[in-house]
C-alpha cells in the first residue's frame, strides 16, 4: 500500500465508524427528548421510564461518538495537510463554529441531564435533552456545510498568489444548495436510525425470558415498540423523500456519481429503464442488469420519458472540461460497483424500515396486541436494529466515493491533498491501532447495550439495583473499609 491508499483507508475507516454513532446519537436524543416531554405533559410514568432507559443507550452512543469525533477534527491536518492549506479559508470556520455553537451546547447539557434527575422540575430537565439534541443537529449542519463545499464549491475565489481557495461570500457557503438537500436527508436518516435501534432492541426485550413473565416489562417494551415504530416510519418516509430531492440535484450537479449508482456506462434509452441488480465489469466498462422499463425516467425526472447520460459520455465531457488544468491522464470513473450496491442497500434499508415499522404497529394494535407472542416477527424486527447502519454507511460511501477523483470537486484531486510528510510505516501503525481500538470499542458498545437491555427497565438507576444484585460481597466489604479509612484519616 502507498501513502495515498493508506490515508484514504484510514479516513474511510475513522469516518464510517464515527458515522455509526452520529446518526444514532441524534436520533436517540430526539426520541428521548420527545419521551421525556410526553411525560411532562401527560404525567404518565411509563414515558419517564422510557426516557431513562433509552437514555442509557443514548449515553453509550454519545460517548463513542464524542471520542471518534475528535479524530475527525485532527485528521484533516494530520493526514491531509495540503488539503487543509488549500481549503483552510473555507473549511476551518465551519469546524470552529461547530465547536463553539454545537459541541459546547451538547456536552454541557448532557452533563446537566445525566446528573440532575431529582433536582429540577421535569420540564426543565427535559429541556436539557432538547438542548443536547439541538447541539447535535447544529453540529450536523456545520460539518455538512464544510462537506458540501467539497461536493459543490460556492462562495469562493482563487487566491492568485497561493492558488488556494479564498472565502468570497460566507452566506453563499452556507446557502450551498448541496447542503440544504444533504442535511434533511442526513437528519431524517438519523431520526430513522435512533428509532430503529429502539424498535429493534425493544423487540429483543420482548423476546427475553424475563419479559415473558413480567407484565410491566411487556407493557414497557410494547409502548417502546409503538413509539419508535411511529418515529421510524416518519423518519423512513421523510428520508426517502429528502433523498429523492437530493438525487434530483445530483443528476445535474455530479452526473458521474448518479450514472455510477445506476451502473450506466452507455447513455440510456428514452424512456430509461432501471436496473434492479446488475453484473458490473469496471475494467471493460460493461454492465448487464435485470431492468424495469420506464423506472429510471420515473425516478430521475418523475415522468415516463427522458434519458440519462452514461458514464462514457460524462467521462468525455469531464476530460474536455478539465484536461487543460489536470492533464489527459485523469481517471474520472468512480468505483461503480460500490456506488451501485451502496445505493441499492441504502434504498432497501429505507423501505424495509418503513415496512417493519408498519408491521410492528399492526402487531401492537389496540384491540389485538399479539406482537409479544409472535416470535418470528420479533426476531425480524430485532435483526433490523442493525439495518440503519448499513443504510447510513451506504449513503456516505455514495457521497464520498462518488466525488472521485476530486477532494474538492473540480478543484483539488485526492492525491494532491495528502500530507507530504506522511510515511508508510507511521500510517500503517495508526491504521492498525485505530482498527483494533474500534473493534474493541464496537464490541464493548454492543455488549453493554445488550447488558442494559437485559437488566431491563427496572434494573436502572439506584445503585443497589444496578450493583447490589450482581457485585460480589467483596465490594461492599471494600466500601465499608473505605468509609472506615476515610473516617480515620
Amino acid at each position, binding site marked *: 500500500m502507498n501513502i495515498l491508499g493508506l490515508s484514504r483507508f484510514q479516513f474511510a475507516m475513522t469516518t464510517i465508524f464515527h458515522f455509526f454513532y452520529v446518526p444514532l446519537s441524534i436520533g436517540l436524543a430526539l426520541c428521548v427528548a420527545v419521551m421525556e416531554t410526553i411525560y411532562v405533559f401527560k404525567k404518565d410514568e411509563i414515558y419517564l421510564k422510557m426516557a431513562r432507559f433509552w437514555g442509557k443507550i443514548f449515553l453509550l452512543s454519545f460517548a463513542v461518538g464524542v471520542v471518534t469525533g475528535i479524530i475527525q477534527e485532527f485528521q484533516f491536518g494530520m493526514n491531509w495537510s495540503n488539503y487543509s492549506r488549500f481549503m483552510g479559508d473555507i473549511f476551518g470556520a465551519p469546524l*470552529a463554529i*461547530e465547536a463553539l455553537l454545537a459541541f459546547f451546547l451538547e456536552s454541557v447539557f448532557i452533563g446537566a441531564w445525566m446528573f440532575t*434527575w431529582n433536582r429540577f422540575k421535569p420540564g426543565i430537565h427535559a429541556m436539557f435533552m432538547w438542548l443536547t439534541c439541538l447541539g447535535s443537529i447544529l453540529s450536523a449542519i456545520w460539518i455538512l456545510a464544510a462537506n458540501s463545499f467539497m461536493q459543490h464549491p460556492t462562495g469562493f475565489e482563487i487566491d492568485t498568489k497561493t492558488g488556494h481557495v479564498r472565502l468570497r461570500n460566507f452566506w453563499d457557503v452556507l446557502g450551498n444548495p448541496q447542503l440544504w438537500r444533504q442535511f434533511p436527508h442526513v437528519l431524517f436518516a438519523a431520526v430513522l436510525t435512533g428509532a430503529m435501534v429502539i424498535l429493534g432492541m425493544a423487540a429483543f426485550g420482548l423476546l427475553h425470558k424475563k419479559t415473558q413473565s413480567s407484565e410491566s416489562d411487556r407493557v414497557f417494551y410494547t409502548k417502546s415498540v409503538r413509539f419508535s415504530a411511529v418515529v421510524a416510519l416518519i423518519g423512513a418516509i421523510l428520508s426517502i423523500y429528502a433523498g429523492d430531492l437530493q438525487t434530483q440535484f445530483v443528476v445535474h450537479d455530479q452526473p458521474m456519481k448518479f450514472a455510477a449508482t445506476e451502473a450506466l456506462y452507455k447513455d440510456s434509452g428514452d424512456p430509461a429503464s432501471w436496473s434492479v441488480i446488475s453484473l458490473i465489469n469496471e475494467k471493460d466498462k460493461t454492465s448487464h442488469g435485470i431492468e424495469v422499463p420506464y423506472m429510471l425516467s420515473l425516478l430521475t425526472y418523475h415522468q415516463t420519458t427522458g434519458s440519462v447520460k452514461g458514464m462514457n459520455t460524462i467521462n468525455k465531457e469531464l476530460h474536455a472540461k478539465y484536461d487543460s488544468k489536470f492533464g489527459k491522464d485523469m481517471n474520472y470513473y468512480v468505483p461503480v460497483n460500490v456506488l451501485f450496491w451502496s445505493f441499492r442497500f441504502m434504498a432497501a434499508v429505507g423501505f424495509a424500515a418503513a415496512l417493519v415499522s408498519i408491521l410492528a404497529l399492526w402487531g401492537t394494535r389496540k384491540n389485538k396486541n399479539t406482537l409479544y407472542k409472535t416470535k418470528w416477527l420479533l426476531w425480524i424486527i430485532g435483526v433490523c436494529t442493525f439495518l440503519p447502519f448499513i443504510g447510513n454507511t451506504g449513503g456516505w460511501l455514495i457521497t464520498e466515493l462518488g466525488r472521485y477523483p476530486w477532494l474538492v470537486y473540480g478543484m483539488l484531486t485526492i492525491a494532491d491533498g495528502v*500530507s507530504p510528510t506522511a510515511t508508510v510505516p507511521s500510517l500503517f501503525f*495508526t491504521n492498525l491501532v485505530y482498527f483494533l481500538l474500534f473493534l474493541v470499542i464496537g464490541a464493548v458498545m454492543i455488549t453493554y447495550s445488550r447488558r442494559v437491555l437485559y437488566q431491563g427497565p427496572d434494573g436502572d438507576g439506584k445503585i443497589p439495583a444496578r450493583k447490589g444484585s450482581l*457485585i460480589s460481597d*467483596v465490594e461492599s466489604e471494600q466500601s465499608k473499609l473505605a468509609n472506615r479509612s476515610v473516617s480515620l484519616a
Partner: protein
Amino acid sequence: MSVLQIIWFCVVALLFAVFLLLEGFDFGVGMATRFMAENDTERQLYLRSIGPHWDGNEVWLITAGGAMFAAFPMWYASLFSGYYIPLFLVLVALILRGVSFEFASHALTVRERSLWQWANFVGSMFAPFFLGMMLTSLIQGVPMDAQGNAWLGFFDIVNGLSVVGGIAVVYFSLLHGLHFLSLKLEKDHARHMLNASSKLYWIAYPALVAFVVLALIFTDFYRVHSITTWLITAIILASTIYGHYSAVKDDGVSAFISSGVTLVGIIAFIFNGMFPRVMVSAGGVHDLLVKDASASPLTLEIMTGVLCVLLPIVLGYIIWSYVMQRGRVSTQTLEHSPYVG
C-alpha cells in the same frame, strides 16, 4: 501583520490556556485515581466529581484546534501533519479516557470497572504528556521546508526539553487535579489531597530550574522576548510557591487558583516566545509567521463576529453548569444522584 491576525493568535493561545486550565484538573483527577485512591469506591468518587464537566472541558481543545484551522490554516496543517505520531497518541489517550467514564458505569464487577478506571488513568496521564511534549519540542525549532512542511525526526520530538516539558504539564495537571479534588470531596479527603500536594510540590523547584536552563539553551525565547519571557517565568515560579504555601496552609481555593495560573503560565510562556512565529524552524530559515499563516481578512472578520456573539453565551451556560453542580461529592452523592437514574 494585521490587528485581526494578532487577535486570533491570542485567541488560539487563550483557547489552549483555558483548555489546560479546565481539562488540566480532569487529567489530574484521572491520575489521582491510581496515585491517591485506595479502593474502587474512592475511584468512583473521584471520577464522579468531574463527571458532569470533563466532556465540556475537552471541547476547549476541539475549539482551539478548530480556531487554529479557521484562523491559521497553514499553522494547523504544518503542526498537525508534522506532529503526526504524538498527536495520534494524544488521540488514543483521549479515546481511552473518553469512553472510560461511560463504560465504567456499566461494569458489573469491581474488576471490570477497574479496567475502565485504568483506561482513564492511562489516558489522563498520556494526553497531557504528549501535548506538553509537542509544544515544548516545537519551540526549539524544527526542520521545515519552504512549503511549511515540518519534517520531524525522532530526536526533534523526543529530547531533553520536550521530555521535561511533557512531564511538567503532566505534573502540574496532577497538582491541579489534587487541588480540584480538595474542593470537591469531603473534608477528610480534601485534607489528604492537599497534604499530598504539599509534598509533591518539592519536585516542582528542580523541575522548573531544569526547564528554564534547557529553555535558555535550546530556545531563543530569553533572547527574543527577554522581558516578557522572564516575567512569565517569574509568574510561574511565584504561582508555584504560592500554590505550595496554600497547600501547606490547607487552603484549597488558593492552591487551585495557583496551580491554574501555573498551567496558564506554561501556555503563555510558549505562545509569547513563539510570537510572531507560529512554527519555529531550525536555524530560523523557514519560520512560519503569523502574517503568512493566517486565513483571509474576510474569514478572520467573520470568525471575530462569531466569537464575540457565541463566546459570552457559551461562558454563561458553562459557569451556570459549574454553579449548579457545586458542592462536595460523597458516597451519598453516588447513591442519590448516580449516573442516569
